[in-house]
């Protein structure tokens, strides 16, 4: 699959608006329809075991939650904030210290109310995953997300406060 610069731009603006992602340095590296890859750089701030330098599971959970929650941008026409309903994470092995972790999320089913995703966290290759996650997200509808925020994510101009819906 090819990297889609328009989708990547939307995800970049969305992830860029999440303070915790800024704190951990999480950033998108690949976006395509229904698929997204985010990168978590290695840093001292996310170490869980000071003796080994291994990253804490919590940082992996944040990476996977963000990736799974943002892949909906690659699956929906219009941006809408989708709160997480549940997240189930299996940790297969410790991430090797000093190297970034990638999270590849897929949006495999979208219904009127719910979005189902799965996600794999890995380092060198996704054949040897660090963790795996399945999640569900609630759809609250695009209207429930403030228009200026939606336009910021979609990369649209706000014309004198005139909303797109308002003009139709």
């Amino acid at each position, binding site marked *: 699959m090819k990297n889609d610069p328009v989708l990547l731009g939307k995800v970049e603006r969305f992830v860029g*608006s*999440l*303070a*915790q*992602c*800024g*704190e*951990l340095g999480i950033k998108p590296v690949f976006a395509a329809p229904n698929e997204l890859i985010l990168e978590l750089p290695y840093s*001292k*701030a*996310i*170490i*869980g*075991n*000071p*003796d080994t330098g291994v*990253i*804490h*599971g*919590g*940082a992996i*959970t*944040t*990476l*996977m*939650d*963000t990736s799974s*929650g943002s892949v909906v941008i690659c699956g929906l026409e219009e941006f809408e*904030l989708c*709160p*997480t*309903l*549940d*997240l*189930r*994470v*299996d*940790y297969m092995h*410790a991430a090797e210290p000093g190297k970034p972790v990638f999270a590849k999320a897929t949006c495999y089913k979208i219904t009127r109310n719910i979005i189902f995703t799965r996600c794999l966290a890995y380092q060198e290759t996704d054949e040897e995953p660090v963790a795996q996650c399945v999640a569900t997200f609630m759809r609250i509808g695009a209207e429930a*997300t*403030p228009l200026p*925020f939606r336009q910021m994510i979609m990369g649209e101009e706000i014309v004198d406060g005139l909303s797109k819906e308002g003009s139709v």
Partner: protein
Amino acid sequence: MDLRNIVARAHENGDYSELIATIPYAVTIGVECERFGDEVLFKLPRKKSNIGNPILPAIHGGVIGGFMEISASLYLLMFQDTPKLPKIVDISLDYLRAGLDKDTYVECKLTRQGSRVANVIVTAWQKSRDEPIALARAHFLFS
């Protein structure tokens, strides 16, 4: 670093900050811990950098999950007399309410302790214990 000594010292003087300071990620999100008799409560004070949803604003779901995971592993370390931090195997998180930009509390309950694996139930709340913002079940491996 001998975690067992740090835990013993923390139990003795009732100050768990030295123990938490050994885990950089816990410091990053700002975990605190307090003991009341035999019970222990974990606290995540309101912090700007923990925000995920900028609109509400609300704490990032991953931070809530990470806080619950750290709390469960510290809880096992404090009460199961293990020399090392247990390893997380899996965690299942249910998000019930938005975690608003406020202080968050976590309480852990040991459901089952085998010789190698422990199962912990974790509850997170803000306003009242009866209105949890998230529930989690987690398995940890002692090795």
